[in-house]
């Protein structure tokens, strides 16, 4: 694994500092006073979470023109999960494919697959989704569970706010702000699969002017020991580990202008299911630096954000005999202003620049990159006190490019990458609060999923008898979503129903194979656009409380997907299938109990019979997967008050269970001791 970065590719933190300081000076004349969002104070006031993840402006979750779930810090703790993907396993409408102890792929509203590309994942607005393969390796997200205020899950496209790849949904992880939140905790865990883990989060305020948060954690474990299906068995499982650290400093400038600097680091080694459904050994390393500036004034709520992510991935492709070294860099600069116009209009204007670059691998010498310039706007109109309309529009101009050498006999030249796209995306939503108990939402949205850098040409394998490459001639996948939703509160605040019906159309679905080009040196296998897909589904959820100490929830999602793929891509032949691999019935349920000292939660996950993709010769194929139910649980007590002892388990009812067509998932039990000071 190459852990060094060419100095020419680095954006030095001092450069970011100067940029942000200049911006602050430029706007200071018009900034009278300001406040970044104090999520805790807003949640305490409104008794419900507040989010900015739907249209950029702060909104109560019951007001947002989208279907979303917010997982609070309390729910994260009570999930008993050891990582973020484990927390998401319990969320209604969220699909998970658990390939190994540290390898869970996550999507929303179906469309899950190995290395899923449709779900954009961010931490406080910073992308942790990796553009190389186009997915999120959850193990390398540099966030400790104890530093998360809430996880926001937006179902459906939201490219109009977040840009490319928010096509099927968005997960925005909101962490505690050290300026407003005091969070100090230490935790250690041990359990089956030789799990040993530790985590620390600390915040400190320097008067009213500055605050700092530091977090670090790591774990080490063995992967499952269940047999690997022959078709996926290309390499032996390695011992897995993860380490991560984050430091965040918030400085209150003149008045209440805020400047925020954050740096993160993470490394992870795990056994990972590859896009071609073969088990690989993967190393993921990530570093990032970020500077944010926010202020209020006559101009509204102004926010500037700049960050650079460096990721270093090494993926052992096993039987192919190659190791892909993926070193990509993403630099993003964003500027947005949110302001009110009169009493009934909120507007947001934003612009963004992104630059992504990656060297070709395993054949080196080339570089694939893209430049994106985007402008976006949002208009929220409160038509009457009970009726509001939100429209958001974004236009991204993407210019693709390639530089460096090409191997002899390569069927493309660098000029083939001189292409550009200017796809528009939108989100529109009408929210009608019929009365205190009922709310109806009607929404339409269009999202864009870009081909990954690997599919765009960073992958360049020249092996004897087998050559494969990315191609610049892939079209982005366009996802359009229409839905109608109803929230209904029964008898006070003790029973809430949330339901939605959605239709989703995905055009130009992408697969990792299916294309072929013959050059002077022979044929190259290429990724391709294989057709379209339609999904129709319902999301029905009830949650309530009883007898003061008990809470419960049931979420049921029936969904049918119809793929309309070219004949050669039918039934997963190009390693892409959604119609058969998305379960028609997905049910999640939770029963929890708590008193002042102890708490217990049980979770049920059921999904109906479906299929999974397995390698069949050189192509993919479908293998049946029986329906299954699994149970997770956690029991915890405080003794004394600052010390929490917890025992939790996943898949408790069986020693091992087939939840994918990959290796069976094992029962896991872990004990955790947490100290809050």
């Amino acid at each position, binding site marked *: 694994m190459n852990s060094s970065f060419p100095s020419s590719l680095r954006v030095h933190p001092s450069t970011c500092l100067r940029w942000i300081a200049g911006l602050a000076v430029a706007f200071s004349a018009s900034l009278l*006073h*300001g*406040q970044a*969002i*104090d999520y805790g*104070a*807003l949640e*305490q*006031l*409104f*008794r*419900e979470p*507040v989010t900015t993840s739907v249209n950029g*402006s*702060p*909104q*109560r979750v*019951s007001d947002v023109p989208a279907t979303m779930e917010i997982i609070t810090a309390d729910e994260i703790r009570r999930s008993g999960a050891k990582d973020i993907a484990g927390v998401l396993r319990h969320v209604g409408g969220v699909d998970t494919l658990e390939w190994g102890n540290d390898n869970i792929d996550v999507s929303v509203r179906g469309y899950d697959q190995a290395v899923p590309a449709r779900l954009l994942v961010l931490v406080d607005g910073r992308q942790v989704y990796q553009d190389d393969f186009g997915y999120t390796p959850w193990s390398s997200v540099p966030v400790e569970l104890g530093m998360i205020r809430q996880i926001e899950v937006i179902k459906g496209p939201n490219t109009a706010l977040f840009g490319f790849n928010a096509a099927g949904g968005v997960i925005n992880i909101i962490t505690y702000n050290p300026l407003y939140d005091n969070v100090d905790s230490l935790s250690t865990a041990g359990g089956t699969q030789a799990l040993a883990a530790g985590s620390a989060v600390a915040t400190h305020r320097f008067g009213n002017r500055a605050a700092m948060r530091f977090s670090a954690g790591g774990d080490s474990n063995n992967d499952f020991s269940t047999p690997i299906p022959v078709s996926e068995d290309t390499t032996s499982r390695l011992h897995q580990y993860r380490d991560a650290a984050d430091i965040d400093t918030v400085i209150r400038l003149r008045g*209440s202008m805020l400047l925020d600097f954050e740096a993160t680091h993470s490394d992870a080694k795990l056994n990972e299911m590859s896009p071609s459904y073969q088990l690989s050994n993967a190393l993921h390393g990530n570093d990032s630096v970020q500077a944010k500036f926010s202020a*209020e004034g006559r101009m*509204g*709520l102004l926010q500037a954000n700049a960050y650079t992510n460096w990721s270093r991935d090494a993926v052992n492709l096993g039987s192919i005999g190659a190791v892909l070294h993926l070193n990509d860099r993403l630099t993003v600069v964003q500027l947005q202003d*949110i*302001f*009110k116009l009169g*009493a*009934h209009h*909120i507007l947001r204007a934003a612009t963004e620049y992104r630059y992504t670059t990656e060297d070709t691998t395993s054949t080196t010498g080339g570089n694939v990159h893209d430049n994106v310039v985007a402008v976006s706007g949002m208009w929220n109109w*409160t038509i009457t*006190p009970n009726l509001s309309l939100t429209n958001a529009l974004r236009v991204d101009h993407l210019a693709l490019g390639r530089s460096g050498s090409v191997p002899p006999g390569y069927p493309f030249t660098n000029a083939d990458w001189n292409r550009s796209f200017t796809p528009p995306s939108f989100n529109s939503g009408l929210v009608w609060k019929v009365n*205190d*108990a009922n709310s109806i939402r009607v929404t339409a949205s269009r999202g864009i999923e870009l081909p990954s850098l690997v599919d765009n040409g960073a992958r360049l394998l020249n092996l004897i008898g087998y050559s494969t490459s990315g191609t610049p001639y892939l079209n982005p996948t366009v996802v359009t979503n229409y839905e109608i939703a109803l929230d209904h*509160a029964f008898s*006070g*605040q003790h029973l809430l129903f949330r339901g939605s019906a959605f239709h989703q159309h995905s055009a130009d679905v992408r697969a990792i194979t299916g294309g072929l080009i013959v050059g002077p040196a022979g044929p190259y296998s290429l990724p391709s656009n294989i057709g379209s897909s339609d999904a129709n589904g319902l999301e029905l959820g009830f949650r309530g409380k009883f007898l003061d100490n008990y809470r419960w929830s049931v979420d049921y999602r029936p969904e049918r997907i119809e793929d309309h793929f070219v004949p050669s891509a039918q039934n997963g032949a190009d390693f892409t299938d959604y119609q058969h691999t998305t379960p028609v019935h997905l049910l999640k349920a939770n029963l929890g109990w708590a008193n002042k000292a102890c708490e217990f939660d049980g979770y049920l996950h059921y999904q109906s019979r479906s299929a999974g993709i397995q390698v069949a010769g050189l192509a993919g194929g479908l293998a049946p997967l029986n329906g299954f139910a699994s149970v997770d649980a956690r029991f915890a007590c405080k003794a004394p008050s600052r010390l929490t002892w917890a025992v939790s388990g996943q898949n408790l009812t069986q020693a091992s269970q087939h939840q994918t067509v990959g290796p069976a998932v094992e029962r896991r039990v872990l004990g955790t001791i947490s100290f809050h000071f």
Partner: protein
Amino acid sequence: MVLKELDFSLPKLVLAFLGLLFGVVPYAHAAGSISIDNLQAAVQTLNFLESLPKGGPVSVGVIYASEIANSQQLAAEAVKAIGTMRGPNNREVQAVGISIDDLSRYAGHLDVIYLLIGASNHSDAIVTAIRRLRAVSISDDPACETTKCCVLLVRSGQRVEITLNSALADAAGARFSMVFMMVVKRT
């Protein structure tokens, strides 16, 4: 005998029920009880009041209409409840009960005027006091929205509803954070 008593009391019960239903209770001159939830939410809105002086305790005047029979008692209850709450940055909150008749003569410092039910019938006196004292008026009485004398209407029912009267906030010199103004309703 019992039947006779029932015959006698039933019309009154029906009338009382109908009265309650339509808000014209026979004892219309008595106010109900105070809502701790509403008071708590009202105090929490002060976290977003940027014009609030930065130091010292937060001063709240609980305004009651003296023509309402039990209003002085309700004011005393509200003063007691508010006194147990904490303001922005954990600051102490000091409350005092003030009759609407005494408001125009009140010479002390007030950051907030909390209007009990019935007080908003005296909107002129309240608006004058808001301007003079540069204090923010908050109430859970929906009538104050109609009479335009509360900067914030804060009600905590099935969900917390907050309505901000922007013109009155300007008159009181009250400045709320932009984030807050984007989340609440504005008139």
